[in-house]
C-alpha cells in the first residue's frame, strides 16, 4: 500500500490518469473541475506529456478523438454544460470504437445552471450522451480514493472494450480533500492494430471512421456493438452493498449522495430501523441483478439523488416495479441532509411507501 497523501478529488483524478499512462489531456476551463486541467498543465510538460487548452469543449473532445485514434491513452474533463458540447464527439467516438476517458464533474442545470454539485446528468451519461445507439461505461466515485481508482479502472475498461469510459462525479467529489493512496499501475497490453500511426508502408491503411452508408452494414455494426455491451453488462458491474443482510428498506445512492445516505442509515439503525444500501459504482452497466435480488427481500426502496429523480427509473425497472420506490432528493446544486434522508427512511418504515 502506497503512502497516503491528502488530495482534492479533482487532483486525484489527474494524478491517477498519469499513473495509468495517460500523457495527453485536452480541456476547456469550466467550474468545478478546473483543478484537473491545472494539475495537468503543471505536470504534463515535465513528464513528456501534452497538456493543451482547447478553444472549446467541441475542439477538446475532437483532439481526444485524434489521440485516441493513434491508440494512446487520452482524456478530457469538464462539467455539465461542457459535456453537452462534447456529446457530438462522444457519439463519433462510439461510432468509431475509440477508447478514451471523459470526466464529468457535474453542476446544477439545465442550461448554464449553477456551479454547485449535482447529479442531474445521470440520464445524459447512462442513456447515451449523444445521437445514435451507444453506451458509455459510467463510473461513479464516492470518495477521493475512488476518484483515483476508478480513473485507473476507466482507462483499462476503455482500452479493453474500445469505448469511452466516463467518470460521473459531482462538484463535492471534485472539491473535497481526503487521504488517498496512489499506487503504481500496471497497464495491460491491449491490441491496438486498428490504430492510425502511419502505415510505414508495411500494411494496408487503417481508417478511423463512423460513416457507413449501407444500412444493412450499419445495422450489423450496431448489433455487434450491442453484443459487446451485453458482455460488459455481464462482466463489469460494480456496486457496494451496505448493511443489506437484514435490511427491510433499501436506500440507493451514488457519489456524494451515498455518503449522506450512510450517515442517515447509521442514525436509522440507532433507532432500530432495518435499513441498508446498494451503492452503484457502475451506473452503466447498472447493477440490475443486485436490485432484483434485493426486491425479493426488502419492502421498499428509496432513491437518494441530487436531481429531480433520474436513477430512480433504473431502480424501478431493475426491480420490475414489484416494490415501491420513493425519491429523496435535492436539486439545482443542493445536497440532501442526513436528516432529510432519515425522514424518508422513517416514512418508508411506517409503511408510507406503500
Amino acid at each position, binding site marked *: 500500500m502506497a503512502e497516503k497523501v491528502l488530495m482534492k478529488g479533482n487532483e486525484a483524478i489527474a494524478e491517477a490518469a498519469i499513473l495509468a499512462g495517460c500523457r495527453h489531456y485536452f480541456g476547456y476551463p469550466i467550474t468545478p473541475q478546473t483543478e484537473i486541467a491545472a494539475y495537468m498543465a503543471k505536470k504534463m510538460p515535465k513528464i513528456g506529456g501534452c497538456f493543451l487548452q482547447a478553444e472549446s469543449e467541441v475542439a477538446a473532445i475532437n483532439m481526444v478523438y*485524434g489521440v485516441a485514434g493513434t491508440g494512446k491513452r487520452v482524456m478530457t474533463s469538464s462539467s455539465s454544460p461542457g459535456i453537452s458540447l462534447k456529446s457530438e464527439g462522444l457519439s463519433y467516438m462510439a461510432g468509431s470504437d475509440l477508447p478514451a476517458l471523459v470526466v464529468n464533474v457535474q453542476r446544477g442545470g439545465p442550461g448554464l445552471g449553477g456551479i454547485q454539485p449535482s447529479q442531474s446528468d445521470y440520464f445524459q451519461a447512462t442513456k447515451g450522451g449523444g445521437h445514435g445507439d451507444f453506451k458509455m461505461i459510467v463510473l461513479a466515485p464516492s470518495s477521493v480514493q475512488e476518484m483515483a481508482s476508478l480513473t485507473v479502472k476507466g482507462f483499462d475498461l476503455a482500452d479493453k472494450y474500445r469505448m469511452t469510459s466516463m467518470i460521473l462525479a459531482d462538484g463535492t467529489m471534485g472539491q473535497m480533500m481526503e487521504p488517498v493512496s496512489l499506487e503504481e499501475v500496471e497497464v495491460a497490453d491491449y491490441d491496438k492494430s486498428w490504430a*492510425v500511426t502511419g502505415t510505414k508502408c508495411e500494411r494496408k491503411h487503417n481508417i478511423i471512421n463512423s460513416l457507413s452508408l449501407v444500412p444493412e452494414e450499419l445495422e450489423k455494426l450496431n448489433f455487434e456493438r450491442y453484443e459487446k455491451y451485453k458482455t460488459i453488462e455481464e462482466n463489469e458491474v460494480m456496486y457496494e452493498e451496505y448493511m443489506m443482510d437484514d435490511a427491510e428498506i433499501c436506500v440507493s445512492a451514488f457519489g456524494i449522495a451515498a455518503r449522506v445516505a450512510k450517515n442517515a442509515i447509521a442514525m436509522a439503525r440507532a433507532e432500530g430501523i432495518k435499513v441498508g444500501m446498494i451503492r452503484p459504482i457502475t451506473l452503466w452497466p447498472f447493477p440490475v441483478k443486485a436490485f432484483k435480488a434485493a426486491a425479493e427481500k426488502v419492502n421498499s426502496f428509496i432513491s437518494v439523488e441530487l436531481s429531480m429523480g433520474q436513477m430512480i427509473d433504473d431502480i424501478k425497472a431493475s426491480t420490475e416495479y414489484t416494490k415501491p420506490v420513493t425519491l429523496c432528493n435535492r436539486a439545482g446544486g443542493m445536497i440532501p441532509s442526513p436528516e432529510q434522508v432519515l425522514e424518508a427512511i422513517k416514512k418508508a418504515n411506517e409503511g408510507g411507501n406503500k
Partner: protein
Amino acid sequence: MVVFDKPKSLLDVPLHYCPGCTHGIIHRLVAEAIDELGIEGQAIGVAPVGCSVLAYNYFSCDMVQAAHGRAPAVATGLKRADPDNHIVFTYQGDGDLASIGMAETVHAAARNENITIIFVNNAIYGMTGGQMAPTSLPGQVTQTSPYGRDTSHCGFPVKVSEMLATLDGAGYVERVAVNNVKNVRNAKKAIKKAFQNQIDKKGFSLIEVVSTCPTNWGMTPINALKWLEDNMLPYYPLGVYKDRDAQKEAE
C-alpha cells in the same frame, strides 16, 4: 518508359466525384506531394464531412474521418500524439472549414499547429445538393439563395486566406486554383511546400484551392472553369498571403 502514372499514395479505386469536379485533380496533387516527399508511411489524413468525406477510401496512408468542421482539432490530436513521426493533413471543403469549423481552423492557425490543411473552396455545399456556402459570391444563386446571395440579408463571403494571414501563428498561407495547367502546376508546388514545412517543423500551413462544382453550379465542366475565372478569381485573388520564412528573409 513510364511517362505518366498514378501516384502511389492514391489507391487504384474509382472516385465517386461528379464528372468535371476538380477534387480528382487536387487529390492527385496531394498524393504526388506525399510520394515525392517519401512520407506515405508517416502520413495520416483527415477527411471532412462533405463531398470529400470518402477521401479516406482513396489515399493509401492511414486515414481518419472527422465530424463536420472538426478536422483541425482531430489533426491536432493526431499530430500531438507523436509530433516527430506523424505527418498530418486535413482535406476540407468550404462549408466544413469556413462555416461550421471556423473556430477549429482559426485556432489551429493561431497555435501554429504543425499540420497541413488543404482547403477546397468551390463556393457551395456540394454533398447536400448546392446550398449557399460561407464562400458563395454576392449574387450567387444556390438552393438556399434562390434569388442570388443578398449581402444585405446574409452578409459577405469569408476570405479565409486573407483572414488567417493576419494571425501571427499562421506560418504559410497561399491561395491557388486548378482551372488551367499553369495554375495546377503552381498548386502542386504550394501543396508540396505545405507538407515540406511540416516536415521541417515550421508549423501551420494552409493551401486554399479555388475549384469548381459543375453539378451544383449547373454548368458544364468547361463553363464552370470559365465561371471560376470570371467570378471567383477576381473575388479570391491567387497568391501567397503569408510566408513566415520569406518574411524573415526579407527582414
